[in-house]
């Protein structure tokens, strides 16, 4: 692919005996937003620091716009970073923070001033130019951090959990605002996050990371609807998942015996295989006489959670590999903890994975 702007190839990094990045490769197109999503310790922040030049890879290479930057120190890479908690310079004003990179790169004051003003306007902080950064709110600090990183015109912007310091309401606003702003600037951006909802909101594609590797790299819809593994299924969104054994297979479909009944799903597994079948919560309806092409199961409700726009039913399943979450737009009358419910979901939406 010629259009790739960032190319990480065979990246490996160890801390002592622990392998944090394990022969990882990643290609990002120009102008694309990619999230590195995973739990803490999966290597996502290490990968970000390696791309920024704050850490050196043990093996592998990193190229931006076709140029190998693996050997360059951070201050020669021109890769912008928005740090978690922003790392603003506490002894400088808003304008001085934004102008720091220009000054460091020897841009003359006469040329820097209009660029600082432009960056201030871009993040709507012009009237705060001479305030100390310590007097700003979390959202304002984030805007300054973004402006500070963008004003030096980096080839790539890395954002390390940029929303984690904000409260929920503000976070949702800033996610959309930042996505819009970066799109306007036309920059290529990599977000590091452990929050799957955030990843779904801000990214064109999401790389789900697990133990120093990328488990799946796909657009949000594919990731959600066609997760490549149980790990991705569990990390992105919720699901009803049931362990079982394949009883019959053929014509691209398997039949699986589970604790709650027989389930058919598209897939290819030999009879006798231990598998896990799964379905996303919103694919499930409560009907005893569904139209054709659906699986039907009987289950018991253990808990009901009202979430506003939808209601979640938690099914009564023994602890272990089985997990049961079903979502309904509206709770039918007479259903509560203890109710027996008939579940129906399309065979086409049923996923099957090898048991872990």
């Amino acid at each position, binding site marked *: 692919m010629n259009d790739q702007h960032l190319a990480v190839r065979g990246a490996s990094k160890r801390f002592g005996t622990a392998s944090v990045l394990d022969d990882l490769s990643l290609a990002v197109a120009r102008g694309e937003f990619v999230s590195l999503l995973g739990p803490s310790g999966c290597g996502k922040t290490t990968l970000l620091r390696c791309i*920024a*030049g*704050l850490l050196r890879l043990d093996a592998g290479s990193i190229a931006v716009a076709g140029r190998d930057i693996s050997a360059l*120190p*951070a*201050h*020669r*890479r*021109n*890769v*912008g*970073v928005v*740090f978690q*908690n922003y*790392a*603003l*310079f*506490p*002894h400088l004003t808003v304008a001085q923070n934004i102008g*720091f*990179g220009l*000054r*460091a*790169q020897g841009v003359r004051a006469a040329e820097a001033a209009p660029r600082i003003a432009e960056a201030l306007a871009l993040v709507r902080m012009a009237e705060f130019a001479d305030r100390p950064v310590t007097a700003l709110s979390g959202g304002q600090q984030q805007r300054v951090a973004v402006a*500070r*990183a963008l004003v*030096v015109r980096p080839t790539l912007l890395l954002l390390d959990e940029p929303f984690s310091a904000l409260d929920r309401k503000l976070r949702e606003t800033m996610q959309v605002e930042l996505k819009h702003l970066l799109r306007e600037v036309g920059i290529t951006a990599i977000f590091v996050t452990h929050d799957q909802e955030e990843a779904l909101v801000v990214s064109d594609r999401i790389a789900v990371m697990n133990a120093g590797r990328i488990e799946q790299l796909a657009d949000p819809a594919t990731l959600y609807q066609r997760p490549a593994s149980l790990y991705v299924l569990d990390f992105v969104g919720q699901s009803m998942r049931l362990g079982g054994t394949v009883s019959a297979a053929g014509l691209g479909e398997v039949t699986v015996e589970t604790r709650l009944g027989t389930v058919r799903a598209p897939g290819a597994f030999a009879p006798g295989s231990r598998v896990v079948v799964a379905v996303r919560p919103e694919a499930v309806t409560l009907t005893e006489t569904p139209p054709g092409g659906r699986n039907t199961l009987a289950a018991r409700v253990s808990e009901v959670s009202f979430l506003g726009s939808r209601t979640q039913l938690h099914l009564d399943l023994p602890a272990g590999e089985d997990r049961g979450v079903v979502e309904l737009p509206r709770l039918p009358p007479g259903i509560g903890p203890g109710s027996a419910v008939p579940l129906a979901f399309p065979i086409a939406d049923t996923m099957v994975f090898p048991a872990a």
Partner: protein
Amino acid sequence: MKRDPLGLLALPGVGYLALVFLAPLLLLLWSSVRGPEGWTLDGYVRLLGDPYYRGVIAASLQLALITTGGALLLGYPAAFALARARGGWQVVLFALIFLPLTVSIIVKSFGWGIVLRRDGILNWALLNLGLIERPVRMIFTEGALYAGMINVFLPFMVLPIFAVVRMLDPRLPDAAATLGASPWFSFRRVTLPLSLPGVVAGVSLVFSLSVAAYVTPSLLMGDRYMTMSMVMAKAFLNLRDWQLGAAMAAVLLAMALAVVVGAAALQRRLGGR
């Protein structure tokens, strides 16, 4: 009506300081301008008009400046090493830098004497290494005095700088680097200004302590090298010249105050950039 009764908790401490520190200090200043015939500046005239005493003041000032400068040069990087060290290393470095504080200043200065004597450890080592052919005079030289003074006062420089540097966000230099700042630019514009409060505290502390030094200079230099404190002691105890001693004390106090106030002002100017 008292708004904050907790403020009363400061009273015993303030009262104690007023009694044992402020009152004698005022008394001292009073006796520097009070002669048998009433108000007089005679003590100051005798002190500042005499080339010998002016020499003592200059020598004390020079000693304090060199000690402070030396301690800053050695202590600043040491404070960073201490702040960045992990686990066991930090304990070891901490012990190396602060254990000397637990040794009395007299023992320490006496120790320097043993090391630097004509038949001392350093001369013995240099002789055996073949670097010198006959013992070198080290003790009672100014070089030895500076080395001893810096040794005694170094912890007072390291501790305040360490306290400030320890709290610095390690991601600030990272952020500077990603913005294109070279390590030197990043140090000059980020680390140094943010560590200044520690430097100001350390410089103030070491200067005020070393300009008033008494024990270390007298043990390492003997009687031929007079500091302001030694002149004060002589004036009070030998000459019974209270006016002269008190005037010297006032000059000493003024010098220490000038450095403390000046350093704080300098920090405010540099920190505001």
